[in-house]
């Protein structure tokens, strides 16, 4: 494999592989890594000891916490998240987070220690073939068995992780390679012969798309995380404002467009808004931008937007026609394709069409939202908690969520003013993601308020990361929406399994006492009249804070597109 390398860092002095790794990270402008030490990565940790002012190491309480924290960091900053772990169980504990990062296109460089090269394949102590294990869930991986291979491997890892459609990369380094001395030099990677991260812009595709958009009577835009990953928020806004097209978001696209923008018509998919789901099956031209037609967005593909002519803007050619047949693909980085497309589209407004979204969303507001955000009796509801957080933070906070009912509620009702503000596990749906991801987000964006909204089930999956909050003093606000259930599974059991609540009711510990054990101040709120003050007290507190909100045990998330149904069959109750 060839790469164009221009030496940036070079030294005639002999450097160990472990030190070379740290110097390579510094050359890539990495100043924070998340990890957990162990036998096979000890030389690297020893080298880190000499570079504590340049590289801050965050010691999580579990490798899964490290990788989720790195994901939170990457999503909040747009930079590459870096993870260190040892061989064997250390490496395998990363896999869930790596798979999560793969499906959500999060740039990560994971570095694992490995047994000595002479022991490879011998079932040595703490040996696993992490290269094979991680292959299906990494964008690229590589095993370093000689120290001199290390700089080029790290340079490629960063280039591959962050270029094109971002993703996780894993570099496995044998222990002997960490010890070996060699003459270190480092050059960033700028190209790889076999790898074309961004398809070249095809103006014919752009013009064909523009012609179709100009003729459309009821065009509809679906946007995803590609807008954020491409730093194309402004280009996206210019495009929809010129064309006057209503735009709806996937949960990973959330925050790419301010919530209050007049053309923002809400959330797509299983628990999305009524209007965008219904009208997907009425629009005449569907313009998908940086989204991948996930099954949670499309529902039954046989009944999805059959009337529409579809344009798909994406950086990844493999996404074109993967789930939905596309008439005009527009390949490329959406910052470039959107700006080119905007030149060729006509200035228009689609007032009547936009009004149709407003009418349907008014129905949803009356039948669902009103009761969710402003209930007057009964136990507290998740929606009203999210809404009150909104009123305090005024759309400027970073919201990190776990997976389940609270996630849908938070994504539905949180308002955002700026991009990179919504961090959640979208594609893999990883419970346990939120707490460590919130730590990573706060360390990446220390000046922003970071709120972890989390269910009682997911909280307990990585609850040990309260120790990381304690040690790093990451000032995150943790809001547990506690319904003593694995709520989303229970909702499905209620609706589709005759209310047979098999293993979904949780006996929970005293979360506040656990928080106290880690030096984290907290409170529990159960009554509606206490909620506002409890939230204000949390935000007034300078450090981390844990607020447990006891919510209705058997509340459900609506609207809902039942599994296998058409998006236009969305239910309001």
């Amino acid at each position, binding site marked *: 494999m060839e790469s164009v390398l221009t030496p940036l860092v070079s030294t005639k002095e002999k450097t160990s592989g472990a030190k070379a790794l740290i110097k390579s990270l510094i050359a890539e402008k990495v100043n924070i890594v998340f990890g957990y030490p162990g036998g096979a990565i000890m030389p690297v940790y020893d080298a880190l000891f000499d570079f504590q002012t340049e590289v801050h190491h965050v010691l999580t309480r579990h490798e899964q916490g490290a990788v989720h924290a790195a994901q939170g960091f990457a999503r909040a900053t747009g930079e590459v998240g870096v993870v260190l772990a040892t061989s064997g169980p250390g490496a395998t504990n990363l896999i869930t987070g790596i798979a999560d990062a793969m499906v959500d296109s999060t740039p990560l460089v994971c570095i694992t220690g490995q047994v000595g090269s002479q022991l490879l394949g011998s079932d040595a102590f703490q040996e696993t073939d992490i290269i094979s294990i991680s292959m299906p869930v990494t964008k690229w991986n590589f*095993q370093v068995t000689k120290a001199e291979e290390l700089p080029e491997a790290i340079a490629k890892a960063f280039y591959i992780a962050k270029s094109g459609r971002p993703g996780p990369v894993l570099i496995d380094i044998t222990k002997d390679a960490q010890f070996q001395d060699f003459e270190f030099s480092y050059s960033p990677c700028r190209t790889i012969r076999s*790898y074309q991260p961004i398809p070249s812009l095809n103006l014919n595709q752009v013009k064909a798309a523009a012609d179709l958009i100009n003729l459309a009577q009821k065009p509809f835009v679906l946007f995803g995380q590609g807008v954020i990953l491409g730093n194309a928020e402004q280009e996206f806004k210019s495009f929809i404002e010129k064309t006057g097209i209503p735009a709806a978001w996937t949960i990973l696209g959330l925050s790419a467009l301010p919530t209050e923008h007049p053309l923002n018509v809400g959330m797509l998919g299983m628990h999305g808004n009524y209007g965008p789901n219904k009208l997907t099956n009425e629009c005449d031209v569907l313009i998908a931008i940086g989204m991948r037609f996930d099954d949670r967005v499309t529902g039954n593909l046989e009944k999805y937007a059959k009337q529409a002519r579809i344009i798909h803007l994406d950086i990844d050619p*493999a996404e074109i026609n993967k789930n939905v047949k596309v008439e005009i693909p527009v390949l490329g980085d959406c910052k470039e394709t959107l700006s080119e497309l905007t030149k060729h589209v006509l200035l228009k407004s689609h007032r009547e069409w936009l009004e149709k979204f407003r009418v349907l969303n008014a129905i949803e507001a009356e039948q669902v939202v009103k009761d969710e955000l402003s209930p007057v009796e009964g136990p507290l509801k998740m929606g009203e908690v999210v809404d009150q957080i909104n009123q305090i933070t005024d759309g400027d906070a970073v919201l990190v969520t776990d997976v389940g009912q609270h996630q849908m509620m938070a994504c539905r009702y949180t308002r955002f003013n700026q991009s990179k503000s919504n961090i959640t596990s979208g594609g893999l749906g990883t419970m346990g993601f939120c707490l460590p991801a919130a730590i990573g987000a706060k360390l990446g964006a220390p000046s922003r308020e970071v709120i972890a909204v989390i269910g009682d089930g997911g909280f307990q999956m990585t609850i040990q990361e309260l120790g990381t909050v304690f040690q790093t003093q990451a000032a995150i606000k943790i809001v547990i929406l506690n319904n003593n259930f694995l709520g989303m599974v229970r909702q499905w059991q209620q609706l589709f399994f005759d209310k047979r609540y098999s293993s979904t009711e949780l006996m929970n510990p005293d979360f506040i006492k656990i928080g106290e054990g880690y030096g984290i101040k907290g409170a529990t709120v159960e009554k509606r009249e206490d909620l506002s003050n409890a939230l204000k007290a949390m935000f007034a507190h300078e450090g981390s804070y844990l607020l447990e909100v006891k919510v209705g045990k058997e509340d459900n998330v609506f609207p809902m597109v039942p599994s296998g149904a058409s998006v236009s069959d969305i239910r309001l109750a």
Partner: protein
Amino acid sequence: MIQSFTISIFSENSIGLLHRITSIFTKRHLSIESLNTSESEQESVFRFTVVVKAEEELVQKIVKQIEKQVEVIQAVYHLDEETVFQEIALYKLSTEKASENNLVERLIRDSHARILSMEPEYMIIEKTGHKEETQELLEFLRPLGLKEFVRSGRVSVIRPKIELQKER
């Protein structure tokens, strides 16, 4: 419609790439009929030839996923009639049994096979051709003292009228 497709993959020679490629088939639950890999006409560019039977739409998706791999330079797929392809088969026969029956010599001649090795205890016959042809000879030889049989993966070149989508 299920058809036979030959997928040609041009790649770097990289440890583990075969695993990455085959796992793409595994994920889509598609069985590989044959697989061959060797260096191509270009130094350091390796060529995988994979034969599958599937709907074209599925093959298209798989090829895109393969081409997405960092170390893959290009991946294309073709129908059988768009390629020239061959497989090689080796047949090991008992010399004693074969010599009892003069059919064997005629079969070898008629099927354009050739004897690679003749030993007192066994003889080895080689035949190149499409799978149907090597299979036909196998069926003939099976009752005539066949001891071992092995068939290679397909090697395939694209007919001249088919142009690759981009330069490698």
